[in-house]
């Protein structure tokens, strides 16, 4: 009887396992093959993934039968078998991103988890293979429509790759089924990078936690289901990919994104972006203690430090230009949304460099502006403008919209802000996962004109404040470090070279 398995798979099986194990292995792989309807290349890779994972488990104490049970083909379900016909229009926020992207510029962000042990690539790959079926909305590729881009489902193998490029580098989206996200690993870190059309930080974190849970289970750990991650055997719900912008109230007044150009920090913009990524590792308790002692939130406290550093890094003549910091706000705290997609708005914090004196002096003004800017009514007005823009532009063909949006974004882009602070908040996992996870971090993609953007997330007592630099001039981070240390916060520094 003709062997249905590809030759490469048979050779690999013979290389990794003994002769006695071949019949069981063959039966197992045929079972896996029966659940795949992919291209030849992806089918061979999937079979190889299973072999590598089985080999890892058997080398680490499991019998072949136990390994095959842990990597049961039933976990593939019919996700890789049936051709999926779903497609998804982009949400209101996501519509702008493909219009403004180029071969060197793309809105990508990254969420990472640091484990206490090095990542096992074979098991991570299997975890990703199993996790994808719970996130069909992420198993898509971007396509051009006549009026807007859209996401078309893609049946393919999604690969977990070793990290080789700069964080948040541009993704190649041109092939038939190119994914709009990537899963990469380096030493003990698992990172997921998303093109912003797919999800915001909240959606990305849910995916990462689900992936992590699946990975740890495949490694043999008992991890229960928990609220902030999906059950991979559960049924995906349409609310997970709904565009929830229409949920928001519709105020009569609108205000928007246009603003005066902001002060930009000193330093030339290099070819390679980002130029550097720096992580300021703090004790969450220490940050919280200092924030409470000053009567502010952690976000306001860090905004204060950022303003001081922006002022130190400012050019000598700023004229009337203000230091303007963009602050994304998660709209899920105002509306009952469970979408993984973009559902956040932005507000701005504005101060003249001359007004930035000392930390204690500026904190009250920061608190006042943040409170006003993050109020539901103000955000609803910006959201309403966003909805109106999409409505007005929906009859304009993409071929007309795209070059205009590209030019506008190139000229204005992030020029109305000096920097950004995106706070993902506290990341929670169940106690059973805590002994395997060290910390999380969150990296924004390189900006266009801004010299630095910042982000924050915390996991238990580890808060990671990340700075993505777009210039070799170190004025901003040097000033940040100085202000932190002068105020009793001494961060442990990690980052790229």
């Amino acid at each position: 009887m003709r062997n249905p398995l590809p030759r490469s798979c048979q050779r690999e099986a013979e290389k990794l396992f003994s002769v006695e194990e071949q019949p069981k292995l063959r039966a197992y792989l045929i079972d896996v093959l029966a659940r795949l309807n992919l291209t030849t290349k992806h089918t061979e890779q999937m079979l190889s993934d299973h072999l590598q994972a089985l080999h890892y488990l058997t080398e680490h104490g499991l019998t072949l039968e136990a390994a095959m049970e842990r990597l049961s083909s039933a976990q593939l379900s019919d996700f890789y078998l049936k051709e999926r016909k779903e497609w998804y229009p982009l949400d209101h926020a996501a519509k702008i991103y493909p219009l403004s992207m180029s071969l060197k510029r793309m809105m990508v962000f990254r969420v990472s988890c640091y484990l206490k042990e090095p990542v096992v690539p074979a098991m991570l790959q299997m975890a990703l293979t199993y996790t994808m079926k719970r996130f069909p909305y992420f198993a898509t590729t971007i396509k051009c429509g006549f009026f807007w881009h859209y996401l078309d489902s893609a049946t393919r193998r999604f690969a977990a790759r070793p990290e080789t490029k700069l964080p948040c580098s541009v993704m190649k989206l041109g092939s038939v089924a190119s994914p709009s996200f990537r899963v990469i690993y380096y030493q003990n870190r698992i990172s997921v990078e998303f093109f912003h059309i797919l999800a915001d930080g909240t959606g990305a974190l849910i995916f990462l936690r689900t992936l992590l849970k699946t990975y740890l289970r495949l490694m043999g750990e008992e991890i229960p289901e928990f609220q902030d991650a999906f059950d991979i055997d559960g049924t995906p719900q349409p609310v997970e990919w709904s565009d929830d912008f229409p949920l928001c109230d519709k105020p009569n007044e609108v205000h928007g994104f246009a603003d005066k150009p902001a002060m930009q920090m000193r330093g030339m913009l290099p070819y390679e972006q980002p130029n550097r990524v720096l992580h300021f590792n703090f004790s969450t308790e220490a940050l919280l203690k200092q924030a409470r002692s000053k009567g502010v939130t952690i976000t306001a406290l860090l905004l204060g430090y950022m303003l001081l550093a922006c002022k130190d890094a400012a050019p000598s003549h700023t004229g009337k230009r203000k230091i303007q910091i963009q602050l994304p706000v998660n709209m899920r705290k105002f509306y009952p949304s469970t979408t993984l997609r973009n559902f956040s708005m932005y507000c701005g914090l504005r101060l003249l460099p001359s007004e930035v004196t000392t930390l204690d002096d500026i904190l009250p003004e920061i608190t006042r502006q943040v409170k006003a800017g993050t109020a539901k009514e103000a955000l609803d007005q910006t959201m309403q403008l966003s909805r109106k823009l999409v409505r007005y532009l929906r009859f304009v063909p993409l071929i007309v919209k795209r070059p205009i949006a590209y030019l506008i974004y190139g000229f204005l882009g992030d020029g109305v802000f000096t920097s950004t602070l995106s706070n993902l908040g506290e990341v929670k996992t169940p106690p059973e996962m805590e002994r395997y996870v060290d910390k999380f971090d969150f990296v924004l993609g390189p900006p266009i004109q801004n010299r630095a953007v910042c982000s924050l997330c915390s996991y238990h007592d580890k808060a990671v404040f990340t700075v993505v630099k777009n210039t070799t001039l170190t004025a901003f981070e040097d000033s940040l470090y100085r202000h932190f240390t002068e105020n009793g916060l001494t961060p442990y520094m990690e980052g790229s070279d």
Partner: protein
Amino acid sequence: MPTFEVHVTYPPRTRHTFWRRNARALWRSLFLFAGYVCLLVNLLTGGIPWSLIVIGGLMVAWVALLYRPQVENTPIKKLCDTLIVVCLYLILLDSILGSSWSLFVVPIVFFGDLVFISAYFLLFLKRQKRNFLPLLELIVLGLLTTACVWAYFRSLNWPMIVTGSVSLALFITMIALFSKPLKLEFQKKFSRG
């Protein structure tokens, strides 16, 4: 000022040379420069507009060899775009050099390429199934061009007849084989949501 030591937690970078990092921009600049210089020399020296021929050729070379759309950079789209640009170039050549051969040559090039692209599409049907819109656009273009030539000249030469026939045959085949996926693809492509 206190300095800090950064513990490196990212892999070492592979730094590409300046030429490799900026290859596309450099080629684009070279093409643009060649186009501008030819146009300038032609304007200054006068005579037949040969610079348009050069510029047209540069555009064909750019689309065929270097242009890479970020989204939907599929072989079928590339072939369709190249075919359209080659046909337009042949029409340009004919309009400059005269003698009206394009009415004969362009349909031959068009239907020949259309048959090739269709064969490619059917050969790799599983993978290319959702990429048939560029091909459909070409087929519709073939039908429309045949109809317009017939309306204007009231007669068709044999290349035009073959173009129209091939386009019609492929159109009917597409509708017959892919009516449901075609309907869905139209919904996706023309969604205003």
